[in-house]
């Protein structure tokens, strides 16, 4: 079986011959290891895809190119971002938020078109992915539909948005409603371009981390809007949503378990979450995870190998399907020997 076939088998609810590896955010490593700057991800898609393809072959990764970013919401709704530059930047950052007060938030409406902010570049990238040979891809194309709480918090800036959860819940809910409507419109636009068959919707949600908000706030603000969006996406005909439940979200996990992800969906976790507990909460989904990215970047090859072994062995025993992956974006500056150590662990322990 190749990696694409393994995903097909998992989606049928069966076990493949071997655990596949999903390189979450792997385009950064693919570029940096080929001596290109990170910003290439956002402005040179030919180079990005070429590096990604070669890297995926070299390390036996799933070939899953996508263009997603966690600052989504600011630029798209009228603010500004800054593309990564310099030695240490990893991702775009927000230079100006579109709203600065509850009143501005409440008067904000949807932009005239979803082709705004990063979206036109993303669509261009998706079209290039679509033109790639189909047999090497696990999905025809992977498109970003960002988590609504993160998207909404990016409109106002985290500090202000978090205060509104207590002081101005009306403004917070308004932005969350806009996020749902924007994402639905974007998903409809993408459906018009690519259809829904073998299209995976990728969605991250770092801003709901319990390092930031309580499970009660999650239940009151993030949960109803997320469930509403996912219901609309699945009603549209999309089969699977890949949800990266980013960071420390143990206190939110039961709530997340009530969010429909598709049939099956993909539930991806940070290293903070125990996969056995997650499997009990997401019995119908494929679990993705969750090797600590800091270890991949800063640990020794032996440490990475041993930690990967533990997760792969645990993942294989889960009653759900399992895809091995970093617990968040693969650090672009990871030592290649540590990437190799993960693959060595998969070769040694990943076979069913």
């Amino acid at each position, binding site marked *: 079986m190749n990696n694409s076939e393994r995903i097909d088998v998992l989606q049928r609810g069966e076990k493949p011959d071997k655990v596949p590896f999903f390189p979450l955010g792997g385009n950064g490593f693919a570029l940096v290891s080929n001596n290109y700057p990170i910003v290439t991800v956002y402005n040179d898609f030919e180079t990005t895809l070429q590096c990604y393809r070669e890297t995926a072959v070299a390390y036996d990764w799933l070939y899953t190119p996508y263009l997603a970013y966690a600052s989504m919401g600011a630029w798209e709704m009228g603010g500004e971002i800054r593309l990564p530059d310099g030695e240490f930047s990893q991702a775009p950052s927000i230079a100006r938020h579109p709203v600065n007060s509850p009143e501005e938030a409440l008067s904000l409406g949807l932009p005239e078109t979803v082709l705004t902010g990063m979206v036109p570049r993303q669509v261009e990238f998706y079209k290039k992915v679509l033109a790639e040979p189909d047999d090497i891809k696990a999905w025809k194309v992977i498109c970003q539909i960002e988590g609504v709480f993160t998207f909404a918090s990016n409109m106002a800036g985290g500090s202000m948005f*978090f205060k509104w959860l207590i002081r101005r819940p009306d403004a917070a809910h308004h932005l969350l409603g806009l996020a749902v409507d924007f994402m639905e419109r974007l998903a409809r636009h993408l459906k018009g371009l690519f259809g829904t068959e073998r299209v995976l919707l990728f969605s991250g949600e770092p801003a709901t981390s319990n390092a*930031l*908000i309580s499970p009660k706030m999650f239940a009151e603000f993030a949960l109803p809007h997320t469930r509403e969006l996912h219901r609309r996406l699945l009603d549209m005909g999309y089969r699977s949503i890949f949800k990266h439940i980013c960071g420390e979200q143990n206190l939110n996990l039961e709530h997340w378990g009530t969010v429909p992800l598709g049939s099956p969906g993909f539930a991806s976790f940070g290293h903070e979450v125990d996969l056995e507990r997650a499997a009990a909460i997401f019995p119908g989904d494929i679990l993705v995870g969750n090797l600590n*990215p*800091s270890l991949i970047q800063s640990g020794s090859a032996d440490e990475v190998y041993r930690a990967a072994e533990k997760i792969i062995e645990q993942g294989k025993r889960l009653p759900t399907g399992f895809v091995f992956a970093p617990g968040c974006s693969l650090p672009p500056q990871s030592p290649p020997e540590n990437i190799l150590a993960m693959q060595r662990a998969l070769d040694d322990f990943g076979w069913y």
Partner: protein
Amino acid sequence: MTKKKEIFSRLSEAVLKFEEDDVRAAATEVLDNNIDPTEAILSGLSDGMNRAGELFRLQEYFVPEILLCADAMEEGLKILRPHIQRNAERGEKGTVILGTVEGDIHAIGKNLVKLMLDAGGFKVHDLGESVPLSRFVEEQGRLGADIVAMSALMTTTMMAMKKAVPMLRECDPGVSIMVGGAPLTREIAEKFGADGYASDAVGAVAEAERLMDLRQV
């Protein structure tokens, strides 16, 4: 309870419950009753912030509550600060240069550390976000702080800390360096050559105090 203690208690409680009107009223009473504003800050406002920090540690408060407590504390400081005599500022435990490292614009965690260090009696020089490594070094050369504290939220930007540590040591071999942020662990901090590590803002105060104790030895 004396009038003074009663006002301090109200200041503390109002910060804890992020009641800005109550903070302003109690702070005004501090001045009306000729109570030492420095003592009111320490035993009232900072006490409330420290109690909030404890609730944060216990996962009863999260970032939104802490941010609102900080706003309430700031309301009190606006009233009391102008009445603190020069050279009679709060007894400081130490001086800290603080910033999020180059390439990283995340502010919330760093700002919480600033708040808690400030409430904990440290004098904090906040350099802001995405601070060039050379700026940390320049500021340390200029201020000679006891501690340089660096924050990062991403695995990529945390590598800036590894580069910054020897630069800071070359500038000032005696400086204590602490690091924190989501991707870090104590083990990684040690690998980078840092003296201290904290996983959150409350822990940062205890860690800064530990580093200050070591500096006394």
